[in-house]
């Protein structure tokens, strides 16, 4: 089955342009359904990002008195080190606290002027071994009784709730991406089938003069592949736009939880590349299957 390149190029080109409205309809169908899929991937990526930020979030902070003594510090440090419930422990000294403080109040110089480094407390950030709330509470209350400890501050319950919510929604979004891929496949198959139906006479003639099945199939698959690629290419713009919108929306919202929701451009490009692959694959496969219906007779 020797394919002449000029035959392939000419037939595929003619077929794409002979029925422009049908071609455009197919391409737009692909673009819309892959945009949906891209959006779902984008959201799941954003949720994933938030998850990662909260996964290792400190569960509680032990604030020391401002005039804490070295002995008191060491004693608390020892208790925490020896506790089987503590997974990770880090000491935040004055300078660190001060620079955090400066960062936090960067927009309010009046406040910054009021505070010197030696007016700030030191603290321990504790990541407990077990996520069990009871243990963490018990450990915290225990430490709070030690001398030199000002206060034990537990991680915001809301943040934990959001974290577990986003974990669940990440899975839902992946499922949505999968579902829109299936929808994309069905929609593409349908519009390609219409295109194939419009050319059933051509297929009939090819069969009668002795063209092989693959010879008949391949130009259609090439056409489907091209339409899939063009549609996927368009959908990348939609995904980029959506990410931009997320960026400015959550940026303006200034929400602590959602500030990282928009993903970096490289991630969007990665999603785009994936969409191109999906589009090409579904286009070629859809066309191949649609033609096969007319090949058996």
């Amino acid at each position: 089955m020797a394919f002449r390149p000029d035959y392939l190029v000419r037939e595929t080109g003619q077929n794409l342009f002979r029925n422009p409205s049908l071609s455009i309809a197919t391409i737009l169908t692909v673009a819309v359904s892959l945009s949906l899929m891209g959006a779902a991937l984008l959201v799941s990526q954003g949720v994933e990002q938030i998850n990662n930020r909260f996964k290792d979030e400190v569960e509680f902070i032990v604030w020391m008195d401002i005039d804490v003594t070295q002995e008191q510090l060491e004693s608390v440090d020892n208790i925490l080190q020896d506790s089987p419930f503590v997974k990770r422990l880090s000491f935040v000294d004055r300078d660190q606290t001060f620079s955090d403080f400066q960062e936090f109040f960067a927009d309010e110089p009046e406040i910054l002027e009021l505070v010197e480094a030696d007016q700030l407390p030191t603290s321990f950030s504790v990541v407990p071994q077990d996520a069990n709330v009871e243990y963490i509470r018990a450990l915290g209350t225990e430490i709070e009784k030690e001398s030199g400890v000002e206060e034990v501050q537990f991680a915001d319950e809301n943040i934990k709730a959001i974290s577990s919510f986003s974990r669940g929604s990440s899975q839902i979004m992946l499922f949505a991406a999968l579902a829109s891929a299936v929808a994309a496949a069905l929609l593409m198959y349908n519009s390609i089938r219409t295109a194939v139906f419009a050319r059933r006479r051509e297929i009939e003639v090819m069969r009668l003069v002795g063209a092989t099945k693959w010879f008949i199939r391949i130009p259609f698959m090439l056409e489907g592949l091209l339409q899939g690629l063009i549609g996927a290419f368009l959908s990348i713009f939609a995904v980029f736009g959506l990410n931009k919108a997320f960026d400015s929306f959550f940026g303006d919202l200034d929400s602590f939880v959602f500030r990282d929701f928009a993903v970096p451009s490289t991630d969007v490009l990665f999603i785009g590349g994936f969409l191109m692959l999906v589009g090409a694959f579904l286009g070629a496969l859809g066309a191949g299957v649609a033609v096969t219906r007319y090949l058996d007779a």
Partner: protein
Amino acid sequence: MIKLESVSKAYPGQATPALTEADADIAKGEFVFLVGPSGSGKSTFLRLLNKQEEPDAGRIFVAGKDIAQMSSWKVPMLRRNIGSVFQDFKLLPAKTVAENVAFALEVIGRPRGVVRKQVPAICELVGLGDKMTKYPDQLSGGEQQRVSIARAFVNRPLILLADEPTGNLDPQTSIGIMRLLDRINKTGTTVVMASHDRGIVDTMRKRVIELSNGVIVRDQDRGVYE
């Protein structure tokens, strides 16, 4: 060239079979008419020969091969040896005369040089040398049938099957088409043609196989319609 051994064929849900124990032996270079009333099985007979239909029983040999045993991937090769012409021409409206003819060579992977040489030659042969750039809707019925014959013959098949090729044409135009088929037959191509046209069958005086309700009731050399 073509041999049927008690071939039977019934379509699904059909009370009486379309063809019942048909026997026929057609030699290379013969010209055979298939005649009979509507529904007698002429088209079925032809469609069995290029494996558009499968027989229920019996054996069919084409060019020495038992095509009932033939695996489906070999069917394209069989069809490259069998040209087909129909009442409704089956031309592609978006292609010119030359492109319609060239299409038959291109889709079986013939090289460009062959296409460039054969297409004008065959268009000349069927009398359409000056209409090669016309589209089917710019041609008369007779001219369109010539294009479809050119397409069927351009690959020089051993056999040409024609299912009522003059069914849509007036008597004058039909005579021209019959002259063309006769010329093609004279090059050694075996021609099997189903026809309703008494006038044509009677003037050509070729072998006639008559079908009635799927049964071959007459097989006569230099025969007439009835």
